């Protein structure tokens, strides 16, 4: 039963107030993209046993989507932040690198 802080309304949300919505920072591919790019965008999601960036909606609350950085193996939450970003804030990246030595934010992925 996770607790995630909604960065928009500051509530320490209990999981039942939230809806999980999969990987964050997906790059959309539309008409003009290759089959492989499009498949990667829709289906080949990150599924690490470790640090994961994901989308959540504060559905029983302010209704906003936000992003969370969370460990899928320990459920530790490194932070939550605005969904209107292309990558996690630098200070959050640094915090995670400090806690998980060797971890770095990926290149914004083109495919796979």
């Amino acid at each position: 039963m996770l607790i995630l802080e909604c960065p928009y309304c500051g509530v320490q949300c209990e999981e039942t107030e939230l809806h999980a919505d999969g990987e964050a920072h997906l790059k959309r591919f539309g008409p003009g993209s290759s089959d492989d790019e499009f498949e990667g965008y829709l289906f080949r999601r990150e599924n690490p046993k470790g640090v994961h960036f994901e989308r959540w909606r504060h559905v029983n609350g302010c209704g906003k989507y936000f992003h969370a950085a969370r460990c899928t193996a320990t459920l530790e939450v490194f932070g939550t932040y605005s969904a209107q970003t292309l990558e996690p804030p630098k200070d959050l990246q640094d915090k995670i690198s400090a806690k998980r030595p060797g971890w770095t934010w990926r290149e914004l992925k083109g495919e796979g």
Partner: protein
Amino acid sequence: MSTRLSSGGRLLNKGKQISFAFNGKQFQGFEGDTLASALLANDQMLVGRSFKYHRPRGIVASGAEEPNALVGLGMGSKFEPNQRATTTELFDGLNCTSQNHWPSLEFDIGAINNKMARFLPAGFYYKTFMAPRAAWKHLFEPIVRQSAGLGAAPKDRDADRYEHYYAFFDVVVIGGGVAGLQSALAAAKAGAKVLLMEQTAHWGGRAPVDGGSIDGAPVDDFIAAALAELKGMENVTLRTRMMGSGVYDHGYMLGYERLTDHTPDMAGPRHRLWRIRAKQIVTATGAIERPLSFAGNDIPGVMLAGALRDYVVNYGVSAGDRVVVVTNNDDAYRTALALKEHGLEVPVLLDARPEGAGALADEARAAGIRVENGKAIAKVQGGKRVTGVAICNQSGEGAVLEEIAADAVAMSGGWSPVVHLWSHCGGKLTWDDAQAHFRPDNSRPPLGADGQGFVKVAGAANGEFGLNAIMADATAVGIAAAEAAGITAATKLAAPAAESAAEANPAAVWLMPQGAGPALRMKAFLDYQNDVKVSDVMLAAQEGYESVEHTKRYTTLGMATDQGKLSNINGLATLAHSLNVDIPQVGTTTFRPPYTPISLGAIAGEARDEIFQPLRRTPIHDWHEEQGAFFEPVGHWRRPYCFPRKGETHAQAVSREINQTREALGLLDASTLGKIIVKGPDAGKFLDMLYTNMMSTLKPGKCRYGLMCNENGFLVDDGVVARIDEDTFLCHTTTGGADRIHGHMEDWLQCEWWDWKVYTANVTEEYAQIAVVGPKAREVLEKLGGMDVSKEGLKFMEWADGELAGIPVRAYRISFSGELSYEIAVPASLGRALWDKLLEAGAEFNVMPYGTEALHVMRAEKGFIMIGDETDGTVIPQDLNMQWAISKKKEDFLGKRAQMRTHMADPNRWKLVGLETLDGSVLPDGAYVPAGGTNANGQRNTQGRVTSTYHSPTLGKGIAMALVHNGPDRMGEVLEIPGTDGKTYKARICDPVFYDKDGEKQNV
């Protein structure tokens, strides 16, 4: 025999006698008794039968760990199977029955399994019952099922109710013994907001029974003082009869509060499940005594030494006049002393250790108790109760040295910390060789949201024994918990000085005697309820089931209703011994919630009957109910399926509703349709992405039907979009789509196109919406008066704001039936009023409300698709020949790229057509159209399927829509369609528009 003593009974109110019944026999007990103590007081040694061999079972413990004393409690709608007698408080009129026997507890036919035990070792069923093949289901399985199963199934609907409660604390302390009290005090004094819970009705735990002193005074004094102090603190909540049931991620935990189990006639909920968020959890859950593994250790009268002591001291009940004590540790000496003190005989105390008991041994000897070191029980004698004990050397193979008459045996195999709650969420354990137990590894706690530990352990649960060590640990842990919860203590509570007898270390004794042969091992029980013996675990190891999980599953060790509280450590030690490895190498099985079983009623909470789930009602719902509408659930809504009149079948009602609507006037409560405002300078651009159609070109005042696909290309919703003004659109969705589509819009606006200037608002429930349908629709609206609804004044696919009968409305001239039709939106609070006025004004046209089925039939007659019927999440607009609704001009819309993939662009996809049966009958719902031959897997090939099928009262025959391979090119072809009813239907492929192809009816 077991009996009530004249002394002892600190928890009893001997002034209040209580009557209860066991297997129909009336017994007497006292207020304060548990069912178990009261049964013992009435010499009811035999209380049940074991699971597999149906062996006689007696009470073995005094608390939550009891595996044997399970009863069916209560009657009828308050009956509950498998209630633990040791944790059931006695109340007046309590009625219970023993379990798992036939015809009676004393004479159980199932006990034949016991005679056969030698042929029924662990896992025997995996090796036999295989021939003939049908025999498992028809012969063997029924026998196995009938002989298993413990308690009877409840028959009636539960008369009680249950509820939940959310609570938030800095520190939750679980366990109200001296450690829990002290931890709570320490945390509370530091300023933390504290909850202290205790699963029984009493504070203080075991310490008052075990003796010792705190700050120089008896333990009871400390308990009273601590309680008084805690009660006086505003930041402390105290709860008894509340068990810490489970610890979950991020500081979530369940507290299972039993409110009326001890007084079933009291008003209010039976159980309240507390859903707690704790910054820190302290488990002060004590320790559980282990049995010793010797032959006959399961005979009624063989009990845990601590339990025997509890019954004497707390309840003034003796399990027998002559009690042999057998132990590998010092604590059992306390039992011997307590028995002696209350005038009972202890013929011998057998200490498996060759030497080296502490101060308590001296005390025992001084009290005249015969203490034999290095000795063990070779065998307990007796059947349904203990009659004697055969003594041997622990170091040998069991040669009997002496036989002693006894009517009870007190055994102690040492104490295991209760680590369940620590472990539920990933806390790790460490093996303590000196104490011969697993205790929490405080360096590897369960981790919370911040990556830090959120559970701490205090006292005996932490592997601390001896009162002084316990008090010191509890104090430190309480302070540390407050600190970890972010509270810096101004003053730190000092640990009180406590004294208890110094104890020598226990010896690791996993089998008694240590060289016991197969015959004895087959009688040495590990799991009393599931009948798992030392020999079974050894067999599992021998056969390669070496993982502790394999052994557990192969033997069923620890899988009974006590979840191995007594058996697990002994079992895994036996396994380690068999594999010749150290115990830590074997490890433990996983601890899972709940600590002890909790009622499913409590888990469900208040959600039953009328509030099982929210039932959504339209503003006109009451009218439908008054009219006796037949409802169908649509999501959480309930919509009238039809309005049957007296004597009418549903089909007749639907036909009547359709005929009257097509001929004159029908009304539909369409309030459930989703309505979403989309507003902003970029609203048009946004809707162009969302819909396959072009929406930005829609003129204010006009409506357009639109299709929505998901990014994967499939149709997900449809509906009419009205442009309100330059910046504002109102999008209608399907009934099920409102919240989903609103979320979908917000998703794209917030996460992809966040720089677009668009706001949305879901106003679905602001309006009641009434479809006024049929040739008389205009007339009835004109009768109400207030706005221009003429052919020219409000053209097809236009909308207008106005008034009808003085009620403010927005009228959309749209049609889902093919008739002249208006959908009137009205503020929900006026929805019923408008409905009533329409009925009144429509009376002269014989107006008829119609339900969802008539709606479905009429749209099918007209060839309109229905999301959920023609679509199922695998259908794209192209399949439905709706290319007209897919803009060619747009570079992009959601689903466009997906629809370019090879399988989506495949010309062989099945396409929408109409079907009409040759004989007028109705095609079966969901029927498939076979093609010739079979596929590589032997399945018949198919070439299409029916998506919706109805009897059309308008056409007087069966009509259907279907997706058919190359369908539109095969007009007139007759298909053969087998039903599951054995019939084969013949249907001709036709245009899906069956009714008014040119739209003459709706454009009047």
